[in-house]
């Protein structure tokens, strides 16, 4: 049983990671008793599990993920959403409306654009996804639904865990320090709503830095410090302009 790479080295497709009694996890594949990387990323081995954290690549849907989608098409009984994945998301009327409102709905008489139209952004959950069809979404859980105001940015989906942080430590710090509302989609889309542009911009700035430095230690504290410094600069500018 041999591991061929040091933890957290950058590997490329085809790099031999391990040989022997190991299990090939995310970002790897098995050929005989050897495990190779299938993507560009950081190699990791824990006990028997060998995996690669991808440094590139888009979002691959998974059931239970919450995502931010943008409506690209309106059908008779459902909407098509761009969720930054190889597949469009489908949100049917019954998965969008609350049960009691649904009773008044008839496809022939109700125009779906009354509820959602092309360009609307939605925070939704993937409830069904398998290889044979496009992911199905719903907005029944609390906090899901149409988004208005604020702004949306996009980051690499593989960096989303870092934006959230251990038990939400990073995202909660960001919300607290900037007093903004932030919703993070597993598909790398993030919605930010603050009282003013500067607060929103601060969040964007912090998130871009997190994305760049995701795989480093002590990041949460560094970002908190950065935000405090920027807030001081903003206050100084406000006083100068007043």
């Amino acid at each position, binding site marked *: 049983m041999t591991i061929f790479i040091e933890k957290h080295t950058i590997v490329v497709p085809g790099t031999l990671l391990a040989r022997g009694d190991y299990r090939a996890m995310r970002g790897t594949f098995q050929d005989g008793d050897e495990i190779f990387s299938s993507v560009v990323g950081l190699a990791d081995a824990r006990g028997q599990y060998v995996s690669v954290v991808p440094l590139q690549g888009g979002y691959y849907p998974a059931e239970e993920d919450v995502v931010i989608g*943008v409506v690209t098409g309106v059908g008779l009984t459902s909407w098509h959403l*761009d969720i930054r994945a190889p597949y469009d998301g489908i949100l049917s009327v019954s998965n969008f409306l609350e049960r009691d409102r649904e009773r008044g709905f008839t496809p022939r008489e109700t125009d779906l654009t009354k509820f959602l139209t092309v*360009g*609307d952004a939605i925070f939704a959950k993937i409830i069904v996804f398998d290889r044979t069809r496009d992911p199905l979404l719903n907005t029944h859980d609390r906090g899901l639904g149409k988004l*208005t*105001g*604020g702004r949306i940015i996009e980051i690499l989906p593989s960096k989303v865990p870092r934006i959230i942080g251990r038990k939400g430590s990073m995202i909660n710090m960001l919300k607290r320090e900037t007093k903004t509302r932030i919703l993070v989609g597993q598909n790398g889309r993030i919605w930010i709503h603050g009282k003013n*542009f500067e607060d929103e911009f601060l969040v964007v700035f912090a998130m871009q830095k997190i994305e760049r430095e995701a795989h480093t230690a002590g990041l949460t504290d560094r970002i908190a410090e950065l935000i405090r410094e920027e807030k001081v600069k903003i206050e100084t500018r406000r006083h100068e302009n007043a």
Partner: protein
Amino acid sequence: MTSHEVISVIERRHIISLLEHGKRFDGRAVTEFRPHEIEVGFIKKADGSAHVRLGNTQVVVGVKTDVGTPFPDTPDTAVFTTVAELIPLASPTFEPGPPNENAVELARVVDRGVRESKCIDLTTSADMVFIAGEKVRIVFLDMYILDYDGNLFDACALGAAAALLTTKIKKGSVNTETGEVELLDERIPLPLAREKVPVSTTFARINQYQVIDPCLAEERVMDGRITFSITEEENIVAVQKGQPGYFHYEDILTMCKLAQEKISELQKLLRSEVEKS
């Protein structure tokens, strides 16, 4: 990862509300060009070439020349022809295939600037018209879009100017017996009047605001677009309004003046890049 280009309502409102505060979504002033670079001589096999970056937009322009027959209605004029290719590399929305109406409009607008300015000597030079009615120089200006992040007009016009200004053509010698033109290894510059070479400045109208050098996000919400092609000696040689929207007539004159200022800066950059090569 998708080929959708639907812009979200949130993004649209964000761009517009920023403009209401005099800001642009990438932090620029409304009259500011994005950082830009020109690299001439990018393609050695071309007679002249340039690679232009305008923000994240990238274009490669190549000039190739040959000897051929003139058009029947202009027998003593060399031929100049412009093509633009919006290749699928550049955007998830560009499809493979022959140039569509956007590619054709782009090529014709850049062509118009060069042609109407008369910066290339297509008629009087003996290196351009060899035998009137039979053998003239053919100049091909081919522009390839590699990366589309808005404002192809200005990127292409800048690339075309840089490529033409650094084009070296093979000297031609007429064989009086056979009537054929032999191209020699010796090279001379393309006959060009420097002060007549145009570059352009493009504006996008978003509600009541006009912004210079729209990036892709701004192009996706714009109501109208206008391009001014202006030479170094400050003649306006081409104008093109695009998109199904309108402009107020007072705004057009204001934008034209602003274009003149911007273009004189671009012309200076062009001069220094060309002189370097």
